[in-house]
């Protein structure tokens, strides 16, 4: 499809073309002014509407397709929350308004949303304090890692290392490294953390252990109580990657289980759309002894019920965001939590886990499943058998696109060969799950009879298999089409 730049017609007016009443040359001195107009498309409103509507039809979303992308929790996003987030009383509010002396009363509703969202997240996770400032899951990890660093520094300790199991999300080691720690990778055993292996690498140099539980294999870390004990014994902190929280709502509270820091991906568990890559929201919760280190500002509540911004936290790590995080995103999560309530949230995890296990059982005779036991909200299969016939995990994924389903996550986690990671979520009907299984089995049967057909998938998508090597070698990152001014 032509780019919007290729559709440009010199002189065609856009909607923003407002006539200027007089000649304003000289307003900006010439040496500080731009030399000519920026080379942007000159198109009409209809051109733009049609172009982006057509583009939208080349895209799979949850609203149009089953999206069992493992570790991404692509569940249905209720529509009413979009209405909530676009209320003008929220969308038109300037973030600096409550920062003036006495101006807090102009933003009481927004401050209450922050206060209440943090309070609800505390109850869901069993943590003592929360911040909604981090703007994505990995931003939450970085915030958590900086809180951990500040805590040890404040105690006068030099803790330079963070342990990350190989079954943790790839962002965990990256976040720890960005925060200034050396990362020790820990090998799993039977898909979970081996306490003996952990003990071997634990020392007084270790600031924290970052765990994903259930881990990226969809497995609950059965040795959790022992792990907590070991981490405590060297006075390190235990971090919980809450991207997979959808599996344990109402079944375990990470604060009570012994974790000191947790981040949540609100755009996963709490029903807010992911926007094709963002914006997300990654709030961080901490236990009591870490509350002082949370970023500023923090919303407080006075005795008269008025909310206010509090910057008076001398041990705070400071500003991780310019203001209060992605307000419109956690506003949606707040609405979602109020809609589902206590029972609804418990049922989310029960039905998500049920759906994952159902899919696992229906596929176990067709795909290798390296850790084939009760899983949590997702499980990892392996296409090693198919790979022996020349059909790889990526080929199966592409063939699923032709059947009208989004693919599972492939080649992740790295510790399973030819990995295919499935996460159906609680919002997909049994009919959808069955149709998916039937279609996948049909593909696996085709691997036996006509592997070349699967290798050449997809054929029904707007483009067939794209050359990613070429994209990386001959970098073409912008449209070179030139426009006349």
């Amino acid at each position, binding site marked *: *499809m032509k*780019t*919007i730049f290729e559709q440009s017609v010199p002189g065609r007016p856009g909607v923003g073309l*407002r006539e200027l009443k007089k000649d*304003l040359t000289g307003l*900006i001195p010439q040496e500080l*002014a*731009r030399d000519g107009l*920026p080379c*942007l498309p000159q198109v009409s*409103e209809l051109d733009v509407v049609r172009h*982006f509507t057509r*583009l939208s039809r080349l895209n799979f979303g*949850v609203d149009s*397709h089953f999206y069992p992308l493992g570790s991404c929790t692509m569940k249905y996003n*209720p529509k*009413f929350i979009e209405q909530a987030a676009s209320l*003008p*009383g929220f969308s*038109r509010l*300037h973030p600096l308004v409550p*920062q003036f002396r006495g101006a807090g009363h102009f933003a*009481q509703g927004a401050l209450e949303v922050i206060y209440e969202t943090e309070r609800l997240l505390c109850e*869901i996770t069993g943590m003592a304090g929360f911040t909604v400032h981090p*703007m994505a899951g990995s*931003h939450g990890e970085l915030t958590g890692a900086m809180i951990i*660093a*500040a805590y040890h520094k404040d105690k006068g300790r030099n803790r330079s290392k963070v342990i990350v199991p190989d079954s943790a999300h*790839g*962002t965990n080691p*990256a976040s720890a490294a*960005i925060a200034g720690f050396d990362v020790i990778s820990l090998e799993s055993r039977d898909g979970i953390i081996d306490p003996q292996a952990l003990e071997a690498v634990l020392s007084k140099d270790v600031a924290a252990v970052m765990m994903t539980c259930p881990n990226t294999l969809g497995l609950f870390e059965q040795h959790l109580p022992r792990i907590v004990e070991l981490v405590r014994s060297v006075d390190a902190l235990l971090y919980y990657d809450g991207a997979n929280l959808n599996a344990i709502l*109402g079944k375990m*509270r990470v604060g009570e289980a012994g974790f000191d820091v947790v981040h949540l991906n609100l755009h996963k568990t709490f029903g807010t*759309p*992911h*926007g*094709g*890559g*963002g*914006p997300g929201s990654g709030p961080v919760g901490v236990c009591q002894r870490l509350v002082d280190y949370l970023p500023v500002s923090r919303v407080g509540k006075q005795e008269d019920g008025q909310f206010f911004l509090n910057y008076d936290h001398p041990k705070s790590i400071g500003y*991780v*965001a*310019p*203001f*209060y995080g*992605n*307000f419109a995103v956690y506003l949606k999560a707040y609405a979602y939590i*109020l*809609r589902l309530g206590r029972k609804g949230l418990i049922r989310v995890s029960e039905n998500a886990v049920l759906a994952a296990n159902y899919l696992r*059982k229906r596929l176990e005779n067709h795909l290798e499943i390296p850790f084939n036991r009760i899983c949590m909200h997702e499980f990892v299969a392996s296409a090693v058998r198919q790979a022996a016939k020349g059909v790889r995990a990526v080929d199966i*994924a592409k063939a699923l696109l032709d059947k009208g389903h*989004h693919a599972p996550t492939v080649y992740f986690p790295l510790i399973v060969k030819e990995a295919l990671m499935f996460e159906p979520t609680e*919002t997909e009907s049994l009919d959808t799950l069955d149709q998916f299984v039937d279609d996948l089995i049909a593909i696996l049967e085709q691997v036996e009879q006509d592997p070349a057909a699967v290798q050449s998938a997809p054929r029904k998508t707007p483009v067939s298999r794209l*050359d990613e090597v070429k994209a*990386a070698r001959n*970098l073409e*990152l*912008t449209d070179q089409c030139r426009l006349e*001014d």
Partner: protein
Amino acid sequence: MPYIPHTPDEQQRMLDVVGVSSLEELFAEIPADLRPKSFDLPEGLGEYEVLRHLETLAEKNNTRLVGFLGAGFYDHAIPAAVDFLTARGEFATAYTPYQPEASQGLLQAIFEYQTAICRLMDMEYANASVYDGGTALYEAMMMAVRQTKRRKIVVDECVNPIYRRMLDCYTSNLQLEMIVISHKEGSSDLPALSKAVDTDTAAVIVQNPNFFGALEDFSELFAHASSQRALNIISVYPLMQSILKTPGAMGADIATAEGQSLGLPLSFGGPYLGIMACSKALIRQMPGRIAGRTTDGEGRTGYVLTLQAREQHIRRHKATSNICSNQALCAMRAIVYLCLMGPQGLANTATHSAELAHYAARRLLKLPGTRMLSERPFANEFALVLPKPAYAVIDRLTRRGYLPGFPLGRYYPGLENVLLIACTEKNTREDIGILKELLGGAL
């Protein structure tokens, strides 16, 4: 059970297939003593009840104040088609495009966004966005640290103080040396900045228009920094970039911006859009997602995420950054906005905003005891020195329904009497007239 489709009968069939007798049995691996001691959440509400509650909260916020508040975040008009197009479920409910054949719409839109950003900034490459303007600036600084393998950073005090606080926070455990060069009456101290940049410097960080609204040409500073092999980083106001000298023309290596002015609502601070553009030589240091153009087996044009070997899902702790997502839907808003406005519409909006600010300055300077903080040229924002503290003035005017600007004393001790006043195309000459009356009464 809202949003959970299974009937009791279907649930039983699923349990039978799994081979367990109850839902509870699925959680057998979580030991009894790790089960919640409390899960004290409110009972669920109906959709309309939740909406009514949120409407009540929204009404407690006062968004009817006539605003001259900017300070990096501006109330520009947004064409209706921006909301309409970006709300489409195919975009809004998609994930990061890991399967490009199923995400061509999003990938092409990101590619077009990258193109538009490069053309607005006069830079060679752009990424698919990061969280906000502050994190973009931090990521740019870290690009320079990795590229130069040096640890000294020179920062102009005229850079948005909120962003400078973010830089402080992110670097608190890294062995970086941050040198802040004080402003001179709201303008950059160019000789001092130049003097501070030497062969140990990884980057010099500046902003245009600066936080006080003043315009600057950093070409000479950048030329000097380049001679020391330091990188030049500039944070800009993207809408105003349609009429101001570009980062590329000044010789910047990395340009960053808060993209909020390109069709994003103020939304109490987020979500916003972190814009990053750089020279070709730096692309492998660029964090985040990048879309590239390629072809399929039949030679048809298509788009993919590229240069993924820099990213955490492959490189883990050796990745260029920990950023996993981008602000795709916000970037979508920006490209739709830029296309709707067109080059002339964008420049007219910027010019109109600047013209109103110049009109406001002329009017307000007639009030006794006022003067401009900086003698530098400005665009749509300026710092006005008052004969009394700005906080008190704001306090009085907000009670009359006017928000006259930002009190610079909040971030700059010594500037308690200075008010930062911004105009956009949404302000009117009549509003400015009333502002002058009210301000006159408050002084």
